[in-house]
């Protein structure tokens, strides 16, 4: 059992999964941000491996990807960063990236390198079920949990095919559109969560548009096993680039508040 399966199995309350972009705004700060997330009480850390063309992401995360790439982030540096952080913590680590970065490293090698660095699960933003076969196989071979995405536009037939994959968790796209802060929880997505929960025992984690404590709580009440908060944290990074100390303090405070 890897860390991701374990954390869901042992959970007593809903889990908070934070998302930030690896290398944003630079390697060292990124490492300190991960420590700040831990300190705030994050249960799972999801890291974006930045791509030049993140078509599933909104402007906040796009800019973070850009900052990271400009500061020298690439797949080699990413695995180095993860390995370094892994020495300090046993928290489950998830990577979110885009197909081309996995493909260019060679699929099997990417998952093996990810496992060696201490990653537990991999989400690929532009890899639907139909294209995912080889990637899922390589993940399982390396002991990594593949994570399938489900959206409110996913038909019941597709859903049952997607649920046939043994996922670390189901990533529920909680809002139509790209990542980014939304004011309210989409009631359609809440109903969709209920439908998935009835169909599977695999944990479900909604993400996209969830930014404050009230929304997080609403999802937990609706039965989410974990909730993913990304853009709200990434925005804090973007807004506090002149003071790393201030940035980390705010991140810790933000995570703490989300967890309350």
């Amino acid at each position, binding site marked *: 059992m890897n860390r991701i399966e374990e954390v869901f199995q042992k959970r007593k309350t809903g889990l908070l999964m934070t998302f930030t972009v690896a290398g944003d705004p630079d390697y060292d700060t990124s490492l300190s941000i991960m420590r700040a997330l831990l300190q705030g009480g994050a249960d799972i850390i999801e890291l974006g491996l930045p791509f030049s*063309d993140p078509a599933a992401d909104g402007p906040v995360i796009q800019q973070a990807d850009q900052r990271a790439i400009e500061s020298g982030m690439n797949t080699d540096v990413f695995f180095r960063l993860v390995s370094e952080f892994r020495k300090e913590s046993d928290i489950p680590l998830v990577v979110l990236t885009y*197909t081309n970065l996995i493909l260019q490293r060679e699929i099997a090698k990417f998952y093996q390198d990810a496992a060696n660095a201490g990653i537990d699960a991999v989400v690929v933003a532009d890899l639907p079920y*139909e294209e995912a076969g080889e990637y899922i196989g390589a993940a399982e071979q390396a002991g990594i949990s593949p994570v399938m995405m489900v959206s409110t536009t996913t038909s019941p037939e597709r859903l049952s095919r997607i649920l046939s994959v043994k996922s670390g968790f189901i990533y529920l796209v909680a809002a139509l559109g790209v990542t980014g802060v939304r004011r309210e929880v989409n009631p359609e997505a809440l109903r969709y969560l209920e439908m998935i929960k009835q169909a599977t025992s695999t944990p479900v984690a909604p993400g996209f548009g969830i930014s404050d404590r009230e929304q997080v709580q609403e999802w937990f009440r609706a039965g989410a096993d974990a909730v993913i908060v990304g853009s709200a944290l990434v925005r804090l990074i973007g807004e506090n680039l002149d003071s790393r100390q201030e940035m980390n303090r705010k991140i810790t405070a933000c995570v703490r508040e989300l967890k309350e």
Partner: protein
Amino acid sequence: MRLNTRMGEYGGCFVSETLMYALEELESAYLNILPGTEFQAELAEYMTKFAGRETPLTFCRNMSRELGCRVYLKREDLLHSGAHKINNALGQALLAKYMGKKRLIAETGAGQHGVATAIAGAVLGLKVDVFMGDIDIERQALNVSRMKMLGARVIPVSSGTRTLKDAINEALRDWVAQVRDTHYLIGTVVGPHPFPLLVRDLQSVIGKEARRQIFEAEGRLPDCIVACIGGGSNAIGIFHAFIGDPSVRLFGVEAGGEGLDAKHGATLCGGRPGVLHGNYSYLLQDAFGQILESHSVSAGLDYPGVGPEHAMHKDSGRVTYQAVTDTEALEAFLYLSRTEGIIPALESSHAVAYARKIAPALKKDSILIINLSGRGDKDVETVNRYLEMGS
């Protein structure tokens, strides 16, 4: 998906799960609505009475004499809107209307596809939003004005490279947010399945006509066909009807920019396979898979990807892919203008430039067709700047 989403090993559906619903819906429209008699009759009506099909196949006396072979131009530049893009825009817009969509979104580089979509939206009563990189907005000001006059909204894209690549990213982002009432009218044979098939089918009218016309004029198949390639829609459009004729040599001409060892947009000549914008095809990318910036004097060829069907034809060797530089294209622009009295688009000028290169090796009675995909009015500013720099 009901169809095979691959063309050889290329193509596929690399999109976020949210968009799979829209692609399945589009595939179903492609299979059920597009071939229908009613749809085809209505589309044919628009193509002939509105857009101006069929386009002539013009024999070029002066060029033939100078180059030493029989040169024809397939005159897509004479279409309403000034380029082949209207074939696809009208077809997809009509399909969107049959599907009950209320709004069209499109990306554009040179502005030709944006103009074509704005025209299609206006005539069919659909709202149009066009995403365009702010660098392209600057270098294609005429087309920006045309789109606005046609009632479309032009949305500047300032992320990433601020050209066509990022306009596609932005269109994908918009589509995923408004997937239920919006159709993404992609302008070329890229994107996830079924777009490369759909756009190919709508553009294949070019080759079907050219095949019949060359038989009427010469009583036989041509020896060579030359077309420019950015994403590759005009090229696939003319090649498709001749793919099964092995005696016809097909040439795709990419944007060599400042040279293949410098900045360029020649994806097939200088790239390697990867995944961008929903499909697996050749890309300009670094060792890690980050997409590189492309360069071309012509905004319509300034794209670091290419249609998956071309990737397949490259690997099989059925089509030969070569590049010509900015300078060669600019020279060809002036050459065709002065020799034949036809001002070509800078995109199409790449095909003209390459035809001039291969013509000397052909026989006197060899037949060469150049797909003249668009007219050059939009490019006069760019070419003027080049002339001023040279003088």
